């Protein structure tokens, strides 16, 4: 199979793709470029999931974020007025509190990062297909949260359909 050098190179390649495209999302002046750059961020994150042996989550990441959220975002951005040269600047600037919060967050994250030396692998080894396990657990152990989320999504769907429907009831001669 692959040697560990190739493995490391591929890992850092995807990590670089993720970090640089995420930076581009934040720093780009053009909103539409930011939105398209998110594609590479989501894709890189999916690749990082693969390195964690979570291939089901990786594919779900692509399906949900690229296929759903990114497309919705792009539609939203494209129908926005004056997207090319938006002055993304607020009149209110709080430099000192902002810097303090940034430093605090960064410090906390770095502290956690450097104090967590060893990742704890699970005691039990993974046997067989991961997808099957996810399926069994969803409809056995976690069936109540699963159903609750389903009902929440159903309510959201009905609400969306209600908001999007025509006002005139006799306008349905398709």
């Amino acid at each position, binding site marked *: *199979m*692959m040697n560990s050098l190739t493995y490391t190179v591929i890992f850092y390649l995807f990590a670089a793709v993720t970090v640089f495209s995420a930076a581009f999302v934040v720093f780009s002046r053009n909103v539409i470029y930011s939105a398209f750059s998110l594609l590479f961020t989501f894709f890189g994150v999916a690749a990082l999931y693969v390195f964690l*042996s979570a*291939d089901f989550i990786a594919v779900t990441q692509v399906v949900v974020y690229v296929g759903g959220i990114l497309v919705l975002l792009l539609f939203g951005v494209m129908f926005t007025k004056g997207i090319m040269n938006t002055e993304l600047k607020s009149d209110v600037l709080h430099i000192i509190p902002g810097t303090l919060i940034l430093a605090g967050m960064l410090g906390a994250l770095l502290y956690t990062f450097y104090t967590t030396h060893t990742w704890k692998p699970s005691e039990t080894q993974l046997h067989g297909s991961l997808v099957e396990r996810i399926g069994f657990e969803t409809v056995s152990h976690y069936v109540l949260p699963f159903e609750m989320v389903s009902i929440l999504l159903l309510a959201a769907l009905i609400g969306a359909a209600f908001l999007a429907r025509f006002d005139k009831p006799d306008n349905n001669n*398709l």
Partner: protein
Amino acid sequence: MNLTSSHISMPLLMGNSLNAWSEALVGFNPMGLPLGLVILAAIPLVFIALYSLTYGVYGERKISAFMQDRLGPMEVGKWGILQTIADILKLLQKEDIVPTSADKFLFVIGPGVLFVGSFLAYAVLPFSSAFIGASLNVGLFFAIGITAIEVVGILAAGWGSNNKWSLYGAVRSVAQIVSYEIPAAIALLCGAMMAGTLDMQKITLLQSGSYGFAHFFLFQSPIAWLPFLIYFIASLAEVNRAPFDIPEAESELVAGYFTEYSGMKFAVIFLAEYGSMFMVSAIISIVFLGGWNSPLPDIGSFALNAWTNGPVWGVFWMIMKGFFFIFVQMWLRWTLPRLRVDQLMYLCWKVLTPFAFVSFVLTAIWVVFVP
């Protein structure tokens, strides 16, 4: 190649159950360069390029000609068989035009993203018992999910062209692909439920047996024809083929999202289209029609099925089944008129999606109660 390194390596690209061919290719690292990986990825790419250059475009033109009682291309070579190569040479020589007011960056990366999106699913398609890019346990899910990248490519191309027709085409195309993903995914789930796995190689293996076509999932349950039909219709919409070709409706939008493209970028968009046409045809063959299994049954001691099965025969059956569905797609294109946008959405949400759910429930009952 020791066992310990195989456990830590990437499960998605090279799982432990990878077959012998691709494993040998991956191990091919001359001078420390992972050349085998590149070759492995290039095989489907070469296949798409060859098939769409030689059979795809030529077949489309000849089939449309015969259906309209014409001869089609006849000038270049015998029966015009070299016409596509001449076309490609012409496209290669053309000046690479980027419109002045276009968004340069998006205009250029659009076709690339589109091509990558249609090409990625080839990684999990089993072409025979001995060749599959990556035998994943989420193969089918990956194949239907990764087309989402294509959507972003279409939006980039349509927006980057800075042309109203292009943008309309892109928006229509994306709305169509996103909507039809739902009935398509539910229909494929029926097949996955009958197999009990999402691994495409395992789905194919479960459909092999000495009775040939009788083992195919399409003939294994009385309801399977319904998801089969739903997936076929939805896949036509997903690859923007007629009667769902409203994103590139010539009479309304010039050519939809690729109006402004010419030369090699146009060729890349076409490669992507023919690539995804074969991809959906391959998926429907794998899930419902046994993939690389021979459809011929054993008749008594006359072991027709055993003779026509094997790694090389597998490639033959897989590609033939794919080409059959591509032929049906072309046949429909010259038979059915184009739908309107509202009819398209009506068909998706009020016809296909409810029937997909019905077939899902019926298949579940069949799988649970019929042994």
